[in-house]
């Protein structure tokens, strides 16, 4: 930048202190008063805009009373399933879900079915089936890995609790008919 450079609107010469320094010269912009007068019209336009928001009404969802509906493929808390006709558990204790789990939050201990004590349709059943929901990342790999569709991801997303121990869900809790707390999103919603 040469020394005789001037700013476009004032013609004030800029003294260049060096090549690496950028001189910024600010002068009061012209037309401040005129723009204030223009602002009156813009104010009216703004008043119209905000009033339109009142007419629109609130879009807030009153959460604990009103819930956001979820999509059918939403991955919430897991569910274990039984056969509807026989009432036997679908899970055969193969531990494929535990193997697939990237967060390592599923614990399965299998046991043999006996004729007197038949729990599942297969040869073995899950004596212990625990999911540690404080570790679960809700990826749904367990659902994919399961050969019998015994475990699926449900729609429930309200799982906060006061203690970490309470977040370890046992087989009974996962098998139990879940409280339908979360509304499902309607078609086209």
């Amino acid at each position, binding site marked *: 930048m040469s020394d005789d450079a001037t700013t476009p609107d004032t013609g004030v010469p800029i003294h260049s202190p060096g090549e690496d320094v950028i001189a910024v010269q600010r002068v009061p912009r012209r037309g*401040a*008063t005129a723009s*204030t*007068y223009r602002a009156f019209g813009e*104010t009216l336009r*703004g*008043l119209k*805009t*905000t*009033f339109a*928001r*009142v007419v*629109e*009404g*609130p*879009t*807030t969802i*009153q959460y604990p009373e009103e819930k956001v509906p979820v999509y059918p493929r939403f991955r919430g808390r897991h569910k274990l399933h039984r056969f509807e006709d026989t009432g036997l558990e679908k899970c055969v204790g193969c531990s494929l879900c535990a193997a697939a789990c990237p967060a390592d939050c599923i614990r399965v201990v299998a046991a043999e079915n006996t004729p007197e004590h038949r729990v599942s349709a297969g040869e073995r059943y899950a004596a212990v089936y625990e999911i540690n929901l404080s570790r679960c990342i809700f990826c749904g790999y367990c659902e994919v890995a399961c050969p019998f569709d015994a475990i699926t991801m449900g729609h429930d997303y309200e799982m906060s609790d006061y203690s970490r121990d309470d977040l370890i869900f046992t087989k009974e809790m996962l098998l139990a008919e879940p409280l339908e707390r979360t509304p499902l999103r309607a078609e086209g919603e």
Partner: protein
Amino acid sequence: MRPTFAVVGYYEPWLIQIAKAVVIFAVILGILPIIIVYERKLLGRFQNRYGPSRVGPFGLMQPLAEIVKFATKEPFRPRTSMAGLFALAPALSILTATAALALVPFGDVQNIFGTPVGLYGIDPSIGPLYLFAFSAIAFYGIMLGGWSSGSKYSLLGAMRGAAQLISYEVSQGLALVGVIITAQTLSLTGIVVAQKSMWFFIPQFLGFLIFLAAGFAETNRSPFDLVEADAEIVGGYFTEYGGGGFVAFLFAEYLNLIVIAGVTVTVYFGGWLLPFGIHPPGWVDPIIVLFKMFLLITFFIWIRATLPRPRYDQLMSFGWKVLLPLATLNTLITAILVVATHNGP
């Protein structure tokens, strides 16, 4: 001989004067929390949300809960602050706001049990001057609060407040001069009576706009809330206040809002008068005034929801380069018109 001091014109017994003061104070202080919750709920609507809705039915108990919260807070002050002035400032703020309240006329002189009672605090012969005197003292509340806090943000807020209040008081006063010339009286009840044929916001429309814009600045309300400007200087002059002091400043602010709404109603919207020659019985007058004030406060909140805060230099140039010339012009034109159409001696 002309009186040296302003004529206040008391004619009620002192007992009734005290009763009047208590009633006005109690009613307005009872309205105050309602306005606070109304403002918050309305601001919510302006932003597509509900506003406070949890405490009590429709969230109406919100201010009560907040007052309990503030009252139970630990009083503290910064090490750098000045104890006496720090305590005095909020008291001064709320005192001046309450004093200005005495001026708003809620109705004409009524005959209550055989005693004529004016439905207003006082009606001095210098109405608007009394108002400006107290809004000038109100500025000390802000200035002292900001300065005695011993904090940079507080001082910045107080300095802005000082400059803003002084700049806009000039335009506000000049805008009011137009009305005074038209009404030919300085008494606020007199101004109301002078609006029998036409409310002053029609002939004095420019003055009304100036008065309103200056009123926003005088009450430190958005868009001219640079005194508080929470995004830049935390909370301005009440940054260091918590608990009781903060509540006092908050109440003073809303009292000022009520006062400016009351004065605007009195001066430009015919006070207790109704249009189209409707004459209701006298006891309706305060309700009319309160309803008009309510509409005006709604407009104030609407403006708050709409306009962003200007920069400080924009605020100053608006006050001095736009409002003041316009107010002067308005006064001049009004004076010429009044003299030209004057049919007296």
